[in-house]
């Protein structure tokens, strides 16, 4: 039996050990500043690769405010714990990363620590970026350091106590930050592996598509099972996918490249920015992502495949005549008058609207995305052949949109009816601050649909 004194000593020693451990966990040294390197000092091929990687990483989506300087930060990222603002990653020496060495940059990517040694909030997805290779970090660094510097001081985060204590992030990392979650699978092709490296790393697809736990970390056991993000639903991109026609690598490639696919529909919400970025990168990277993700979707069951084929066979031959009312006369009329002229014109996107039986939004677990799209429509891309859809926020009431959505769900999907669609629409109208075509009322909002 130990004496109280001994116990006291043990406790003291333990406490010191814990403290040391805690400091070891929490404390990180600053990395010395450097003089901003001259843009010409970077190899141009490296810069170019960095640009592609930045596009794959969708960096601009979080770090560029619409209408503001590229990568100057200040974009609000809402979380359940409050709002975090993205930082300025231009090479501005005062407010950006102009004085960061490559080592400092690499550490931020790998461990979520800034140059000063402060823990970064995991809204910056270092749980994925930790997989980025040193070589790719070098390219990203070269790219960012050759951008136009923008003087833009950081915006104060709006987090409630205790989440405003950065030390907590250390604990979060202890629990959830795993280095090297991506491992080469020698059984798979080089393309598959490159795709896996990108998807699990820089492209951080799971950040939106994998559900999160109470502490805001991705649930590792249900990867890509679908999640809510920025008032949109990021669909399940595994075997739970609600897509009426099963995805394959070719379709994924086209969709990620162009932003729409005639058998699946148009990328909207936060995904719109992702595909816009992916349209800029080498086809081989997108192909690799598509190959890996097709595997994550898995081969469809025979039944799913049969149904998909059947839908495709029927698509385009939809009668433009008055559709059956199916007990929802208002919804049917609204469909006939507002949707059918484009969606039942027998022309696949972008020559017409998608055949709604192929629409993922209508087969999704909730009406959120469909409501967003009906409210806001699809804005044209300046100068590009791209789908356009008028928004109906200003001409339809919540009840009317709900009637329409209920009708579309019953008519075009084989899933059970949605519940409380009016509530979903009301909520969508409230949060969907970006109503076509007005810029967001709050310019700190990301560029939504």
């Amino acid at each position, binding site marked *: 039996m130990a004496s109280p004194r001994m116990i006291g000593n043990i406790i003291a020693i333990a406490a010191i050990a814990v403290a040391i451990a805690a400091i070891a966990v929490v404390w990180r040294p600053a990395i010395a500043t450097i003089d901003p390197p001259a843009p010409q000092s970077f190899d141009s091929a490296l810069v170019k690769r960095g640009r592609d990687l930045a596009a794959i990483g969708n960096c601009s989506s979080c770090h560029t405010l619409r209408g503001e300087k590229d990568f100057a930060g200040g974009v609000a990222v809402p979380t359940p714990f409050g709002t975090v603002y993205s930082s300025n990653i231009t090479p501005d020496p005062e407010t950006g990363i102009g004085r960061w060495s490559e080592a400092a940059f690499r550490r931020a990517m790998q461990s979520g620590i800034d140059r000063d040694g402060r823990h970064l909030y995991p809204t910056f997805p270092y749980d994925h970026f930790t997989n980025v290779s040193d070589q790719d970090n070098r390219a990203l660094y070269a790219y960012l350091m050759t951008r136009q510097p923008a003087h833009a001081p950081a915006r104060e985060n709006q987090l409630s106590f205790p989440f405003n204590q950065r030390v907590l992030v250390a604990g979060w990392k202890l629990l959830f930050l795993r280095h090297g979650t991506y491992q080469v699978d020698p059984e798979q092709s080089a393309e598959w592996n490159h795709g896996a490296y990108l998807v699990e790393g820089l492209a951080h697809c799971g950040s939106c598509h994998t559900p999160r736990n109470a502490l805001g970390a991705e649930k590792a056991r249900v990867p890509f099972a679908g999640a809510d993000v920025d008032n949109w639903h990021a669909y399940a991109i595994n075997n739970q996918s609600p897509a009426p026609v099963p995805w394959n690598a070719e379709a994924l490639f086209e969709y990620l490249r162009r932003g729409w696919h005639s058998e699946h529909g148009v990328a909207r919400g936060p995904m719109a920015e992702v595909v816009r970025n992916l349209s800029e990168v080498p086809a081989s990277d997108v192909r690799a992502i598509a190959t890996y993700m097709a595997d994550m979707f898995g081969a469809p069951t025979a039944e799913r495949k049969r149904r998909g084929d059947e839908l495709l066979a029927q698509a385009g031959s939809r009668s433009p005549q008055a559709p059956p009312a199916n007990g929802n006369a208002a919804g049917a009329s609204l469909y006939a008058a507002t949707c059918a*002229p484009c969606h039942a014109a027998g022309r696949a996107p972008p020559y017409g609207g998608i055949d709604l039986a192929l629409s993922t939004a209508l087969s999704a677990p909730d009406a959120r995305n469909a409501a967003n799209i009906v409210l806001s429509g699809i804005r044209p891309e300046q100068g590009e052949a791209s789908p*356009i859809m*008028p928004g109906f926020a200003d*001409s339809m009431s919540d009840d009317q949109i709900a009637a329409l959505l209920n009708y579309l769900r019953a008519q075009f999907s084989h899933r059970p009816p949605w519940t409380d669609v009016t509530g979903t629409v009301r909520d969508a109208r409230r949060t969907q601050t970006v109503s076509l075509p*007005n810029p967001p009322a709050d310019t700190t909002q990301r560029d939504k649909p």
Partner: protein
Amino acid sequence: MMTLKVNGQDHQVDADPDTPLLYVLRDDLKLNAAKFGCGLGQCGSCTVIVDGKAVLSCVTPLLLLEGKKVTTLEGLGSIEAPAPIQRAFIEEQAAQCGYCIAGMMMRAQALLQRNPKPTDEQIRAELEINLCRCGTHMRILRAVHRAGRLMQTADASPAKGSIQEGSIQGSMP
């Protein structure tokens, strides 16, 4: 039969409920301003105001308009008594063929009603939906700014449009 309120007047309209407002305005009510451009919600030439908001009448079926107030360009003012926005477009000579202009004016009017002093950026963003093929854009922008100023000085209520000033010819820029 349905009652449709257009420019302050009730009309009994005998058309199917799925008929787009555009056709009702042009065909049944014999109004000219709202124009058919695409019928697909892609060009804005059919824009009218419904309960204060700019709406594409080609994709707005009659059944959505129960109890709502529709305003067309005809309802803002007339040749004899042009509304501020009409005066502004005349004064800026903001038309070439003019086919897109009615739609532009309606969308701009809706914007000015909720934001009397829009920035150039806001006007551009708002008018993004509307196409002009003649390239009259610079004048349209100027005309919307001018309309904003006119609406602040003149009686801004759109329906009255009782502007009595000297001949428009005298006030060319």
